[in-house]
């Protein structure tokens, strides 16, 4: 590696505070994750399930990384219980979805995290088991990084992955190590999601093959600079997670300080530039994702900072 000394790392207190504030905001706005009866009836459940799945994933990260204080831990547990019991109706929403769309992997993708955390929906598991016997399950057309997500969900749910993981990685954009100067908005998300699924959301950074880790180490700073300049906090947050999955995370203080400064007083992270204005539920739709990512990035970075301290 022919580079100068690495950038200064952000202090753990700063890294931790971002997530603590973001989690507080999410907890205070948890009602807005709710699926309405109309949504359940009208087939727009897919869209609303994604945030719930992400909420569960990121609460799992908080538990796993062990960096939550007791108050944060209580909040996260309460949010998870709320998501399972209130939002998913104890899993019924997922089981209904599987019945409506029997060969879709979406319900399994959401369920896998809850199952690892001890929530069970046996009827859903039985339905998924039947669908997995079909060739369709393995051949559904989807983006290569999404395919990794399905394989990871299978792995999490204790099922044999329906395809070879390494082969699936090699079909992603990142797996081919293309020209780094072509990375625009959509490609950047393809990269972050490949890393998330490959590492099971940061649990196993060593699953990143060495040549991909070297590639990311080399070019991630340039991409972070790019999206920092654009004040795209959603994408920057995801790239900050990727940084924590590398063998030597930078936890770059200058970037983290600007990321933290973008957070609203109440703890929400805007998607880009400043906080949107308007109806609370519209604002929630705009900022819940970057705010969840802020919890994720904070938990991972705090954990790495404490490991290296």
């Amino acid at each position, binding site marked *: 590696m*022919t580079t*100068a000394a690495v950038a200064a790392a952000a202090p753990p207190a700063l890294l931790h505070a971002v997530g603590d504030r973001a989690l507080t905001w999410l907890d205070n706005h948890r009602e807005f994750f709710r699926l309405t009866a109309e949504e359940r009836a009208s087939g727009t459940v897919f869209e609303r399930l994604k945030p719930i799945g992400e909420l569960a994933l990121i609460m799992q990260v908080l538990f796993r990384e062990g960096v939550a204080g007791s108050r944060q831990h209580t909040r996260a547990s309460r949010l998870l219980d709320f998501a399972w019991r209130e939002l998913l109706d104890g899993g019924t929403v997922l089981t209904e979805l599987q019945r409506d769309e029997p060969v879709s992997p979406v319900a399994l993708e959401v369920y896998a995290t809850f199952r690892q955390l001890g929530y069970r929906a046996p009827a859903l598991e039985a339905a998924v088991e039947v669908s997995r016997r079909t060739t369709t399950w393995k051949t559904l057309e989807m983006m290569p990084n999404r395919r990794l997500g399905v394989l990871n969900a299978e792995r999490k749910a204790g099922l044999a992955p329906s395809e070879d993981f390494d082969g699936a990685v090699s079909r992603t954009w990142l797996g081919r190590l293309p*020209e*780094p100067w072509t990375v625009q908005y959509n490609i950047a998300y393809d990269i972050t999601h490949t890393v998330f699924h490959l590492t099971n959301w940061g649990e196993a950074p060593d699953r990143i093959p060495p040549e991909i880790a070297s590639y990311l180490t080399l070019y991630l700073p*340039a991409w972070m600079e*790019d999206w920092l300049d654009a004040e795209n906090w959603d994408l920057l947050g995801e790239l900050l997670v990727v940084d924590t999955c590398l063998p030597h995370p930078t936890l770059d203080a200058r970037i983290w300080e600007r990321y933290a400064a973008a957070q609203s007083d109440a703890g929400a992270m805007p998607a880009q530039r400043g906080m949107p204005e308007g109806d609370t539920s519209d604002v929630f739709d705009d900022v819940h994702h970057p705010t969840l990512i802020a919890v994720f990035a904070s938990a991972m970075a705090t954990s790495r900072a404490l490991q290296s301290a």
Partner: protein
Amino acid sequence: MPLSAVVADVATGVVLALRGGGDPYALSRVLPQDDPLAPAAIRVLGADVLAPYALDHRSAPAGADDETVVRQALAAYPPGPDASEVSVWTYRGLIEASRALLPGDPGDADRAWPQVPRAGAAWITTDPWPKLAFRASQLAALAFPGLAPDLADGLAARTDDLARGFVRAVRRRDWLQAAGLGRWLARLPHVPPTLGLDSGLVFVQQMSDGDARVALHVVAARQFYGRGG
């Protein structure tokens, strides 16, 4: 004609010469010594105004008129005590190139080239990558065979950082900076193969929409170092 247009004209002349088209190059023809903007244009382009002389079949032998126009520029802009490091390095590069490629006469006080000034080099090892990339791109005219060997050695230890700078410059659509960095990377060993430098240089030229200074860096990378072809 504004300075930017004069600079673009000279850069176009250099590009044509390096590509091997048209009449043999003579600096004093693309930039006559009575052009009041000649010294300023040479200050901007630095050693690149002499680039075709490094490929002897692309130019006429350099003559007294060419020497005069460069001397005027060197006399007009000697770096002062507060000059930026980039200015000093650029000035040095022009003196080094003049010594190598123009007639001069070390035995004749009027025709000897100025002494090369000392140029600060600490930044080459200590600058964080964005700043390093910015400065290196401004010094791209020194990515020229035989020029500034110390600078090239220093930058050879920072190729990963220059590669980051190239990525960043392309993303920002700063084609001149990208081309300058690509030209340095073409000169240096151990450039990361994943950068895709060859297709990158061609891409930058295509996207720059005919910018003559961008074209100059790209053609220099190709003619001097065989990259971006």
